[in-house]
């Protein structure tokens, strides 16, 4: 059973803070100059001689509207200018450019990008056409008023696409069709191999390569500055986030996780281990909530207890009691998440746990690397 030791979590920032705080400045600088690996936010495609502007519609249906896609069919890069934002995929990176709020960049494999690379409807049909294998791939082509029209099926739906413009790749590069200025970037998320050293300034924790019948399938680093737009929100220090997350999945997850876009829900049994520096304002806000101060609401501090982690490090264990528990099989409360607080880091473990299970798991946490 957890016990309350009477110490406020928010009063215990220690010597580790200065190191993290100095690292934060580096992260902030990184956000305004380049993505974490130093490349442009999105690289221009290099495999294609031409980039195509294509109008796509689904004849006979109202459910799928006409849309315009820029596609580099061989590299698979694409750009769609939507109602309020532009979406770009190129070279393993997906970017949302919102003129009001900034650019959001994510990079990684299919595990982290999911179906995002495939969201250009015409990509595969256009590739077949460019490679001269349209008929073989079930794509019919014809010339109408000097424009190429493609008819094809995708996921059971018939589409008609008209090529309205063809640009030389150099021209597309010059027009920065697939490039996002780094100064626009307010948020990036990058997939990392589980257990790899953090490149954002946080001391992350994990369970090792497996825990409780689950395997570490991927890690994500996330860093965001306050979103652009409203000045008061930009000035709010809670807008800065630095996270290192490791995802543990049951075999039944089938390669999916809560990090994978395009799903209706999170895979059953998933555990997310989310580490963030204690020095961040948003982390302090969580610790204040544990101490009974949450916005204008006041309540009794949540119970907390000391715990020894896998490498002998002492930490504080707190269950997030903000979300009401579910009843366990024997009536014991089952909670959504618990927090392990070390000198430098708040690590939230998200899943489904009794208090006893939370303690057992907490004792297995150790720093990454």
């Amino acid at each position, binding site marked *: 059973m957890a016990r309350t030791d009477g110490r406020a979590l928010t009063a215990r920032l220690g010597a580790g803070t200065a190191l993290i705080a100095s690292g934060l400045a580096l992260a902030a600088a990184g956000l305004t100059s380049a993505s974490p690996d130093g490349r442009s936010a999105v690289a221009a495609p290099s495999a294609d001689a031409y980039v195509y502007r294509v109008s796509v519609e689904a004849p006979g249906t109202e459910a799928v509207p006409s849309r315009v896609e820029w596609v580099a069919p061989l590299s698979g890069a694409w750009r769609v200018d*939507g109602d309020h934002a532009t979406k770009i995929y190129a070279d393993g990176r997906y970017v949302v450019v919102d003129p009001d709020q900034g650019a959001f960049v994510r990079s990684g494999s299919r595990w982290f990008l999911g179906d995002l690379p495939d969201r250009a409807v015409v990509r595969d049909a256009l590739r077949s056409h460019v490679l001269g294998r349209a008929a073989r791939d079930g794509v019919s082509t014809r010339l109408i008023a000097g424009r190429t029209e493609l008819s094809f099926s995708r996921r059971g739906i018939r589409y008609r696409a008209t090529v309205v413009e063809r640009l030389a790749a150099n021209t597309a590069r010059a027009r920065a069709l697939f490039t996002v200025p780094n100064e626009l970037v307010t948020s990036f998320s990058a997939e990392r191999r589980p257990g790899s050293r953090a490149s954002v300034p946080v001391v992350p924790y994990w369970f090792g390569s497996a825990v409780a019948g689950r395997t570490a399938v991927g890690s994500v680093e996330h860093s965001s500055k306050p979103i652009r737009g409203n000045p008061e*929100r930009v000035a709010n220090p809670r*807008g800065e986030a630095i996270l290192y997350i490791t995802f543990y999945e049951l075999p039944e997850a089938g390669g999916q996780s809560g990090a994978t876009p395009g799903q209706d829900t999170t895979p059953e049994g998933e555990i997310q281990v*989310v580490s963030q520096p204690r020095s961040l304002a948003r982390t302090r806000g*969580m610790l204040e909530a544990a101490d009974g101060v949450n916005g204008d*609401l006041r309540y009794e501090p949540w119970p907390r207890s000391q715990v020894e982690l896998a490498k002998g490090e002492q930490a504080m264990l707190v269950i997030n009691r903000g979300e009401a528990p579910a009843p366990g099989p024997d009536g014991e409360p089952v909670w959504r998440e618990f927090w392990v607080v070390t000198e430098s880091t708040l690590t939230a473990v998200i899943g489904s746990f009794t208090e006893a299970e939370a303690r057992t798991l907490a004792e297995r946490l150790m720093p990454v690397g």
Partner: protein
Amino acid sequence: LLVVSFVLAALVSAPALAHLKIDGTWSYRYYSRETGSGALSRCQNNTGKVDPINLIFYQYGEYNRIDQHIRNETHLGNFTGHSPQLLCQTDNGSSWGTHAEFNEQQGHGCLTHCLERAHMRLWFAPHGHSSNVDKWTVAGVHHEEVQDFSHVIDEDWEIWETHIASEMYDHHNVYWYAYSRVSAGYYRGWYDDGYVTRIGGLHDGAY
């Protein structure tokens, strides 16, 4: 003992907190639920999560007024073709109720003829408040695009929480990152910071 403490806490503290919290626990779950059979069980067992409920309109957050203010002050508006979801609510931390949404609004696109849209579901407080200042409404807002007849989330949950609050900022008190609900993390493939933005119900300081 836990149940007893929840009940005692509810009796003591609920009126002052407008039923938002029962001691340190929120009176509604952070994620919406699908309607249909088994909904109550999903609320009780905290399973079947759908969307984060990332905005709260409190104080003076009477639902008809809030619904109207959103229509007047943002790019969202009413539409037909709702896909209702449920709010899970408790008065004592252990027994649960399911509450139907009050309305849905959309904007920056549309449901059937557009490439994409912002989509918001609204729920009013599932119990009455005699005082206007205590009234509240909650909402879950996200952005999605049409993909082969289905709608898929295509931006971080945070972007649209911020977008809507920014659009209402000129006439309402907005409390950014007002409440810590859950840890930050990735949910259905997109970043959620776990904080809820609070928007006051007074319009230019008047009810």
